[in-house]
């Protein structure tokens, strides 16, 4: 544990998240190449690099327009998250979707914010907006039994670094009480480790973070019961982001 803590103390949470997502991306490509995952590794690579590149490019442009210095890791993280939840599909037939979504993700950070802190998780906002306006949603393909050990391994290390075990566990326990069989073969783990725990959109108070996790699970369960839309997971996060902003310390 000492070795892990020394390592974690030596890097920023953004850099750790970047390593974590890069690991997942690389493992997914290898498992697809080995046909353990049912995807074309070329589709993952091409779409993934394009999404990361467009996030980087559009973030630089928006940063220049709004006179805000962009966080280097943040834009890459958003691109990797999108690459892990969109597709995988052939590049050219899906070019519009692959182009609009990362731009929306970066735009949301600059346009929808309070005191220069964005309200919504950029990736979640972008895939909800794309689902509504383009009719194309996220598949959350990274959620699979084969990826689960890697998601859990990196996720636990990440949670130790950002000290958000209670947030993630609050969500998982509340959700899995209703749907226990979804534990491994779904994107619930990835969602709870990576997207739900984003420091800028979740509460700063430790107790509130637990409630935030439970609240998100409840909203997700209700949405899945009430709505027949395909984007309940990301929509529940946007609602939780509003809740998180309302209870956030000033």
């Amino acid at each position, binding site marked *: 544990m000492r070795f892990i803590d020394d390592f974690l103390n030596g890097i920023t949470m953004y850099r750790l998240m970047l390593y974590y997502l890069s690991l997942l991306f690389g493992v997914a490509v290898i498992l697809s190449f080995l046909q353990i995952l049912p995807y074309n590794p070329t589709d993952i690579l091409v779409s993934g690099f394009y999404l990361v590149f467009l996030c980087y490019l559009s973030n630089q442009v928006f940063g220049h327009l709004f006179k805000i210095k962009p966080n280097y890791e943040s834009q890459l993280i958003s691109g990797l998250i999108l690459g892990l939840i969109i597709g995988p*599909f052939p590049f050219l037939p899906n070019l519009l979707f692959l182009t609009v979504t990362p731009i929306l993700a970066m735009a949301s950070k600059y346009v929808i914010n309070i005191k220069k802190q964005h309200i919504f998780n950029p990736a979640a906002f972008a895939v909800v907006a794309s689902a509504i306006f383009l009719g194309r949603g996220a*598949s959350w*393909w990274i959620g699979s039994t084969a990826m689960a050990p890697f998601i859990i391994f990196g996720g636990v290390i990440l949670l130790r670094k950002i000290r958000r075990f209670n947030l993630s566990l609050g969500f998982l326990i509340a959700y899995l009480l209703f749907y226990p069989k*979804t534990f491994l073969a779904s*994107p619930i783990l990835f969602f709870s480790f990576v997207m739900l725990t984003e420091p800028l959109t979740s509460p700063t108070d430790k*107790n509130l973070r637990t409630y935030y996790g439970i609240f998100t699970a*409840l909203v997700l*369960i209700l949405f899945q019961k009430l709505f027949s839309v395909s*984007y309940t997971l990301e929509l529940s996060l946007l609602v939780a982001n509003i809740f998180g902003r309302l209870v956030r310390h000033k």
Partner: protein
Amino acid sequence: METKNILIGGVVLLLVIGGGYWLLKGQTGTTQPSNSTAITNTQNPTSEPNKNNLTVEYSGQGFSPNSITVKSGTTVTWVNKGSDLMWVASTPHPVHTDLPGFDALKGAPAGGTYSFTFAKVGKWSYHNHLAPDKNGEVVVEQ
């Protein structure tokens, strides 16, 4: 801040209890237990349809027919006539929990098929997990 935490915690707890009651209430008295989840995934062409074996085609633009009504015990086969992968799965996306077992668990390539035998009476929506805006429904009658 402590009072605020307690208040928020109380509201969340009430929502969880109320929501849980509502959900469990909605699940009672539904359908007969499902005992059939015959799943195949092959690139072989499908056999001739009969009254116990219906076929739905996926073109990449959607499922056709989009809605079918079948008797309990009917096997429905989805055939991928498009070029992208077809991963048939129960709603809601992406957790596929409405009808446990109704999930191909992988994408069928062009020409591939996925079959599922519906034992449970009800109205079951589904979608292509890799293109979740493409969806359809199977109404299963007694």
